[in-house]
């Protein structure tokens, strides 16, 4: 009958849409942002580990690491988070002088055109989580091996990268309500479609 043909057409259309959506999700849409997201963090860690070999001057290493950490903080907070996963956080000062921290996440549109790709999201969160952990490990190793002169740099690394981690986790947690409501509505639609298709098969 005609109604079942319509429903079959709709589900085929959906399958095509899903395949194209899946291929879109695995592509990296912002290669430059992804590169810089990891570049500053990893090079700060590499310089810290190889400073003895690279140059005999402690100051050059320290200044380089400080500059890399600052650039990384700025890039991750202002650019890569917004581009790669659609999250952002900032500080706003009211007219009466009180400061508020705002955490935002980009709303996903119904067609799913603006969903972030999975690989970008994976790169982002991987870089965001592992680097502060590595700096905390460096902090403990500097403390226990009494290399106190490195402690300032390591603390700065922990604070800056930890701040970004905390900010983005709060953005993510804050948007969980949206995510769950989206997920339930999507699952509800799928469930409805399957039950209607099954009913049609049994009747026809």
């Amino acid at each position, binding site marked *: 009958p005609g109604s079942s043909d319509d429903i079959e057409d709709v589900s085929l259309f959906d399958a095509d849409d899903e395949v194209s959506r899946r291929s879109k999700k695995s592509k990296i849409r912002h290669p430059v942002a992804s590169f810089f997201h990891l570049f500053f963090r990893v090079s700060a860690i590499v310089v810290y580990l190889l400073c003895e070999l690279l140059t*005999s*001057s*402690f*100051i050059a290493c*320290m*200044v380089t690491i*400080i500059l890399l950490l*600052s650039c990384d903080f700025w890039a991750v907070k202002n650019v890569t988070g917004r581009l790669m996963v659609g999250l952002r956080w900032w*500080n706003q*000062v009211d007219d009466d*002088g*009180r*400061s508020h921290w705002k955490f935002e996440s980009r709303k996903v549109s119904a067609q799913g055109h603006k969903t972030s790709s999975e690989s970008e999201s994976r790169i982002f969160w991987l870089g965001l989580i592992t680097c502060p952990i590595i700096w905390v490990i460096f902090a403990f190793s500097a403390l226990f091996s009494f290399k106190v*002169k490195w*402690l*300032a*740099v390591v603390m700065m690394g922990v604070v800056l990268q930890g701040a970004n981690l905390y900010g983005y986790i709060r953005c993510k947690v804050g948007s969980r309500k949206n995510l769950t409501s989206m997920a339930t509505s999507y699952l509800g639609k799928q469930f409805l479609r399957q039950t209607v298709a099954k009913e049609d098969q049994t009747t026809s």
Partner: protein
Amino acid sequence: MYPKKSSTLLRDWDLWGPLVLCVSLALMLQGGSADSKEDGGPQFAEVFVIIWFGAVVITLNSKLLGGTISFFQSLCVLGYCVLPLTVAMLVCRLVLLAGSGTVSFIIRLIVVIAMFAWSTLASTAFLADSQPPHRKALVVYPIFLFYFVISWMILTFTPQ
């Protein structure tokens, strides 16, 4: 340059200026140790830590005394007010290139005292505004001490 209306200026705080000033001041204070074996490394870290730790302690102090200024705004002000002392450091280094006698010491003393007064007055103008009147002295004293320590480091700097 002497700040009059403080609250609106402070709204857009950023910590880039203080970072650059701190790093340049710490770099310029290099090579002043009597121990020539070390490459001046710990002193860079010392100056860096003194400036940032001192700024954090002053901010916490003013917040605990009931100040209305936010944490990062206060850090921003204290960091930017290190600029006159950085200029003083530059002048001192140039004067020391010319010679290190009594005359140069007097010149350096005058310059450092003038810049120290400017730094302290400027940051006090911002930070004391946010305090109730009977507590202003409690906020000003740590700022005075902070810039005094930095000025002392600048004045007692002797190149190798």
